[in-house]
């Protein structure tokens, strides 16, 4: 019997064994524990300002890591991520708002972290993700046949179209009776318009945000290490060669796009239910998309840990510079330009943090 190339490799798991099953579940369990710790220990200890910051960080991590699947893994250039965030956020926000109105007569939060309201909220996050994924499919299928900058332009156009359409929606009903008078189709056209969608119940908390962060990180990691994800990487490295090797490039690009759109939708849903959010189309315009692209490029194209760290840094940095008032955005812009000139490959390049010198262990090669 010839030895399989994987036979001697340490850490290779055979599917179906107990070790493989644990290896699959352990990271999820660790993530859940971390999320619970954040919710019950860290959150109360640091107070509302830093809890809010941790929630913002979590949402930005989801956005950056998911955009990384398109921009980093597959080497396509999408600058409409905030558009998908808006689609998911509005879908989920409308779902919880109108369901609360009809079922409980008002948009108040029902139950605690694991209450009935939270079940609705988590369901709404998934629905928001799916709606965004469907939008991603519809946008991606025709436009991913184009190469390079044209995708960027189409996604930019898509983001703007979403913004304009959302700005034209009508006011949200404030009372349960008004809400009951609307048909489901009418509900979809009463999303607050340019004034914003206010009154969405505040279900987002540290626990659920970091659960979804865990999910995003694990999906991104597993994807990168799988055959499926290798097809993405091959498109980034050389599209023509990938095609010659039998990779259906358009199909894989669309898949990357749909996966990214799904998580952007989830992030949008989490953002919509955050304390203090009035969902506003203008906030989810191209500047938000650029912010996410900047996180990916700063972290390094295709590096999950890079995108994560960049998302954390770029969420904290504007807050930290808040004292500088007028000069805050100028400093931010200058740093961006300088980083691009001094370190064009981003923080980690295409590698992960544990593949770099202080952490890298010698591997049997």
């Amino acid at each position, binding site marked *: 019997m010839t030895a399989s190339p994987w036979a001697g490799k340490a850490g290779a798991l055979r599917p179906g064994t107990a070790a493989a099953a644990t290896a699959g579940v352990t990271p999820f369990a660790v993530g859940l524990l971390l999320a619970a710790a954040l919710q019950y220990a860290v959150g109360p200890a640091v107070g509302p300002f830093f809890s809010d910051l941790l929630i913002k960080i979590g949402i930005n991590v989801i956005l950056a890591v998911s955009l990384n699947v398109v*921009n980093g893994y597959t080497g396509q*250039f999408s600058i409409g991520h905030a558009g998908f965030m808006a689609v998911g956020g509005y879908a989920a926000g409308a779902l919880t708002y109108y369901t609360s109105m009809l079922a409980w007569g008002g948009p108040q939060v029902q139950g605690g972290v694991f209450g009935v309201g939270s079940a609705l909220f988590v369901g709404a996050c998934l629905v928001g993700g799916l709606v965004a994924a469907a939008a991603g499919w519809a946008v991606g299928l*025709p*436009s991913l046949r*184009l*190469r390079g*900058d*044209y995708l*960027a*332009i*189409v996604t*930019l*156009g*898509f983001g*703007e*179209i979403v*913004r*304009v*359409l959302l*700005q*034209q929606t009508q006011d949200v009903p404030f009372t349960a009776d008004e809400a009951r008078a609307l048909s489901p189709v009418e509900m979809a056209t009463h999303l607050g318009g340019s004034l914003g969608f206010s009154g969405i119940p505040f279900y987002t908390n540290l626990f659920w945000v970091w659960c979804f962060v865990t999910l995003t990180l694990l999906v991104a990691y597993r994807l990168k290490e799988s055959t499926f994800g290798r097809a993405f990487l091959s498109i980034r490295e050389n599209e*023509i*060669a990938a095609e010659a090797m039998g990779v259906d490039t358009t199909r894989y690009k669309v898949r990357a796009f749909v996966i990214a759109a799904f998580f952007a939708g989830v992030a949008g849903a989490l953002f919509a239910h955050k304390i203090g959010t009035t969902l506003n189309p*203008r906030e989810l*315009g*191209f*500047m938000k998309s*650029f912010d996410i*692209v*900047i996180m990916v*490029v700063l972290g390094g*194209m295709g590096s999950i840990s890079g995108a994560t760290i960049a998302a954390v840094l770029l969420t904290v940095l504007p807050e930290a510079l808040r004292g500088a008032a*007028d*000069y805050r*955005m*100028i400093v*931010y*812009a*200058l740093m*961006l*330009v300088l980083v*691009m*000139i001094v370190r*064009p490959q981003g923080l980690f390049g295409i590698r992960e943090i544990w593949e770099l010198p202080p952490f890298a262990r010698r591997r049997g090669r």
Partner: protein
Amino acid sequence: MTDLLQTLLNGLAVGSLYALIALGYTMVYGILQFINFAHGDVFMIGAWSAYAVAAALGFTLAGGDPPGWAAVAVLLSSMGICAVLGFFIERFAYRPLRSAPRLNVLITAIGVSLLLQNTGQLRPVFGTQPQSMPALLPDTTLFQVAGVRVGLVDVTVVLLAVAMMVGLQWLVFRTRFGSAMRAVSHDHRIAALMGIRVDTVISFTFVVGSALAAAAGFLFAMKYSGLKQPADATWVLLGLKAFVAAVVGGIGNLQGAMLGGLLIGMVEMLGAAYLSPHLRDLYVFVLLIGVLLFRPTGIMGSTSVEKV
């Protein structure tokens, strides 16, 4: 009939502004193959410096009719300011990245864009208050066609824009420097081997593009006197629409940019007049996606097959 003519006139005026800005996008794309997102902000600086120069020369809204040379002086100084700005942007932000991946240059462009907006907001620069541009051109009616008033401002906007486009055409296709520009856009390395100073040509492209954007900014301030604050989203949106014009016409193609600009202006104005004024941004981007789906290289763009 009157309404239609009025709408077409507006479309023509707005379209020639878009075309002027689109020329800058398309020139930079033709030579460096990257989307210069900061170009829209150069346009904004052009409009605001026109205001600042007019204010410094003592022309105000209440100050009566300014002399005839006022408009020319303001236009030239605003073009000069932006030409210098364009030179420095290229020299310090883009030139160090000449061999970096295009994505990095794009992020840098976004960085420069943020920098221009927020520097413009500073109190010693333009401040955060919206301002009204004084009327430097008298508001006289030149002639009337079927009840539509054609004013001096409209005519100036269109004529000046056309004159600049003709000038640019002449520069690019009839002069020695223009053939150097075309050579660089064809292939940097070969152009350098032929003895062309590639860096000089690229700098000059930015200077010309920025000056055109400044002219568009001046004309914009003449036609719509209310200037929003420098970091307002409307500026970015105007820049994006001009960019869409460049793409629709076929990016990298000068005539395409002019055609795209006029088309975008017309579509926007006709849509706003006959469909719904609230959705005017929508038509432009729907047109963009439609054009890209059916003719990805734009109306006048050429297709090229990528080889291994």
